[in-house]
């Protein structure tokens, strides 16, 4: 299976080289996916950071058919063995370890599986949150498949089914646990996978009413699907969860996985419109090649789920080449594949109609069937319909399955619209350039050959007019209006002026009246280069032709004429480095030299010394110092208080601010006042006693 897949894919790749990326063309998985996968899933130091990432990488490689590297495998198996063997591993790690083992098939002993099985069974019976159910039941189903233990069953499968189902909401979404009222579409996908696992683990049939209720939930979930204009359908979360926002891709892939797994284990159809399944496939393919590892895994894994699911398998119709050339006589080729690029069932492709882009008029062709080439698996038309001229068209195809039963299995999506560009040669002829005197007719008319190399030389003054005309027609003889038809005049000083050439039908003409253009030309006389550009996306022979020179004589500019904008000599100078800016900082004040300042500090302290010496000289004494204890204490406290205030001032200068100082000063001041009052009043009373005595 893998080999035929690869051979087919090589063919697709060869054809896809010529394809253009148009928004609504959905390409199935290709080699570019493979190379991107190898780049994105490069592990650091040989192993991935978590088992979940290891699983994502290995599953992506498995779906894309990339041969896994042995060093990743051994590291992964090592990690799996460790996780499964340890009894303290987290539930999530056990789950991913089992998933990795499912791909790598490492050698695990039976008793390890037994231990894990008993642990998971215990978790199932005691679980309450959705994620616990998901990991434990999912793990058990993997063990059942791997060890092919047919006797591994859940003890109370219906009870577990019911508990998971109880977390669902009426709009088809699921809550993560009964405490959290917020519901999420991503959780719905997880829940469907868990329910499918419960069904496969139950020994007897689950009650059909429960299964029917779940199918109803799925239908209600699909009511909330969103769509893009090009026919892609997707799921998105309404509420943005703070810690983990699941974008549209991860939400859609979760639902796709859950849906396909659930449909696989239940009988009976789901009654989902196949257009929505096809729309989901288109959304997943329309992403192209994601740049993020997790996005790539989600895309590839969900496409693998859609590849062979029991709801309906989407079939993708694509054209390897959407640009067809009339000159090369290209023909319309169509391929039909499944999303991963495998063969489609037998069907017929019909070209229902061809419409000009932007107009929904009647189709240019009648409905035709495309012939199928079995060797290349390509549907082709012999030749392009005759009435298709150059331009942009929308081709509408329809797929009709040969086997009527297949219409239930496959989603073809009715009519598919593909935009096609048809290119071809456009004939340019009757090209003329003339200088006209106003209303007197032309002085010189020159025929120009727009395909050749020769140029013309003209001269004119500001009273004359320049006229250029030519005709454009397609190979079928119709008129053609190109996207660009521009005449450019460039002065010697590199000042440029561009004009659009107007048209009516096949005839293109432009008249330049120099009298009105004198100001626009900045009064610059001299030699002008004349250049004509005609181009369009569907025109194979778009050209830029230097027609020749025009010697233009304009009057002198008046005093206040506008100057032409300065033309740069070299385009590179505009983006070159600018001059360096030197910043001028404030120069700090010049301070005197330190020695001088220190000298004067010493000098300032001299008068203090002089004061103290003078005091000694005067014969000061402390005779009046009170001798009895209480006043003596007050006297001491008074002096200490003053010293404390001076110390406070010193601290204020050194580090404190005014407010803390004032606060402290308030307290000290009050104390000082009290003490000072006591001692001074004591001294006053003593001296008054002495006086009276």
């Amino acid at each position, binding site marked *: 299976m893998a080999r035929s897949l690869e051979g087919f894919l090589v063919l697709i790749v060869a054809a896809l080289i010529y394809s253009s990326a148009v928004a609504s063309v959905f390409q199935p998985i290709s080699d570019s996916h493979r190379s991107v996968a190898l780049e994105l899933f490069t592990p650091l130091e040989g192993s991935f950071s978590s088992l979940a990432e290891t699983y994502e990488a290995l599953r992506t490689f498995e779906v894309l058919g990339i041969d896994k590297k042995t060093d990743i495998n051994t590291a992964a198996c090592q990690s799996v063995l460790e996780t499964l063997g340890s009894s303290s591993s987290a539930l999530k790690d056990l789950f991913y370890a089992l998933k990795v083992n499912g791909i790598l098939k490492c050698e695990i002993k039976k008793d390890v599986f037994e231990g894990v099985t008993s642990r998971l069974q215990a978790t199932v019976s005691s679980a309450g949150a959705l994620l616990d159910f998901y990991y434990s039941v999912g793990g058990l189903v993997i063990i059942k498949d791997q060890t092919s233990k047919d006797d591994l069953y859940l003890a109370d499968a219906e009870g577990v089914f019911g508990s998971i189902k109880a977390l669902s909401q009426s709009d088809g979404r699921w809550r993560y646990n009964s405490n959290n009222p917020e519901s999420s579409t991503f959780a719905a996908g997880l829940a469907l996978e868990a329910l499918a696992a419960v069904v496969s683990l139950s020994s007897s049939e689950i009650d059909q009413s429960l299964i029917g209720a779940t199918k109803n939930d799925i239908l209600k979930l699909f009511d909330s699907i969103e769509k893009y204009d090009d026919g892609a359908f997707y799921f998105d979360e309404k509420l943005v969860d703070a810690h983990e926002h699941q974008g549209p891709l991860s939400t859609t892939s979760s639902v796709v996985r859950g849906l396909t797994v659930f449909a696989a284990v239940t009988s009976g159809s789901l009654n989902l419109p196949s257009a929505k399944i096809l729309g989901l496939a288109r959304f997943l393919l329309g992403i192209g090649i994601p740049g993020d590892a997790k996005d790539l895994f989600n895309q590839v894994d969900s496409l693998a789920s859609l590849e062979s699911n029991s709801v309906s398998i989407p079939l993708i119709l694509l054209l390897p080449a959407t640009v067809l050339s009339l000159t090369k006589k290209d023909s319309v080729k169509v391929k039909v594949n499944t999303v991963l690029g495998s063969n489609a069932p037998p069907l017929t492709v019909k070209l229902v109609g061809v419409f000009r882009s932007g107009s929904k008029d009647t189709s240019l062709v009648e409905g035709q069937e495309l012939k199928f080439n079995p060797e290349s698996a390509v549907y082709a038309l012999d030749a392009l319909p005759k009435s298709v001229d150059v331009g942009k068209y929308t081709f509408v195809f329809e797929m009709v399955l040969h086997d009527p039963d297949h219409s239930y299995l496959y989603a073809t999506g009715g009519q598919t619209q593909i935009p096609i560009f048809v290119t071809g040669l456009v004939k340019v002829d009757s090209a003329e350039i003339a200088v006209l005197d106003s209303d007197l007719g032309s002085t010189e008319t020159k025929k120009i050959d727009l395909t050749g190399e020769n140029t013309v030389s003209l001269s004119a003054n500001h009273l004359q007019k320049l006229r250029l005309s030519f005709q454009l027609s397609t190979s079928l003889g119709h008129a053609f209006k190109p996207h660009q038809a521009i005449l450019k005049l460039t002065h010697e000083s590199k000042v440029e002026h561009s004009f659009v050439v107007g048209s009516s039908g096949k005839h293109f003409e432009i008249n330049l009246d120099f009298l009105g253009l004198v100001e626009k030309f900045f009064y610059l006389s001299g030699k002008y280069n004349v250049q004509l550009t005609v181009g369009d996306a569907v025109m194979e022979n778009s050209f830029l032709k230097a027609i020749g020179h025009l010697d233009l004589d304009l009057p002198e500019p008046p005093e206040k004429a506008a100057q032409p904008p300065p033309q740069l000599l070299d385009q590179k100078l505009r983006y070159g480095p600018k001059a360096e800016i030197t910043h001028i900082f404030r120069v700090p004040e010049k301070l005197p030299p330190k020695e001088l300042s220190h000298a004067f500090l010493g000098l300032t302290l001299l008068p*203090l010394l*002089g*004061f103290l010496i*003078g005091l000694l000289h005067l014969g000061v004494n402390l005779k009046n110092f009170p001798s009895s204890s209480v006043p003596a204490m007050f006297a001491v406290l008074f002096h200490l208080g003053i010293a404390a205030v001076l110390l406070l001032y010193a601290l204020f200068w050194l580090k404190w601010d005014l407010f803390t100082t004032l606060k402290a000063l308030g307290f000290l001041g009050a104390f000082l006042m009290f003490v000072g009052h006591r001692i001074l009043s004591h*001294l006053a009373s003593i001296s008054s006693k002495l006086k009276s005595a």
Partner: protein
Amino acid sequence: MARTTSSDAQALFHSLRSAYTSTPTSLKIIDLYVCFAVFTAIIQVVYMAVVGSFPFNSFLSGVLSCVGTAVLAVCLRIQVNKENKEFKDLAPERAFADFVLCNLVLHLVIMNFLG
């Protein structure tokens, strides 16, 4: 004429000196304090003249603290002097308390302005 003026000056000086010796010691202490404050101010002005007036606020606060405390000391001397009839009823201790309080307030302001 010159000799009489110089001898007059000398005689004046002598009489001042002799009169001064009779002033009470407390007043002499206050006089000495005023001289000390004034000298400190003069030295600061000389320093400013040498190095320039940056930073001006520091210079002002330094000089004004000396001048302010000298003024307060002069006030104290006036109030404490027993020969002053106007302040006969004012107790010298009270004057001294005023002197201390005013000095503390002056120095708080000076410290704030010093920068």
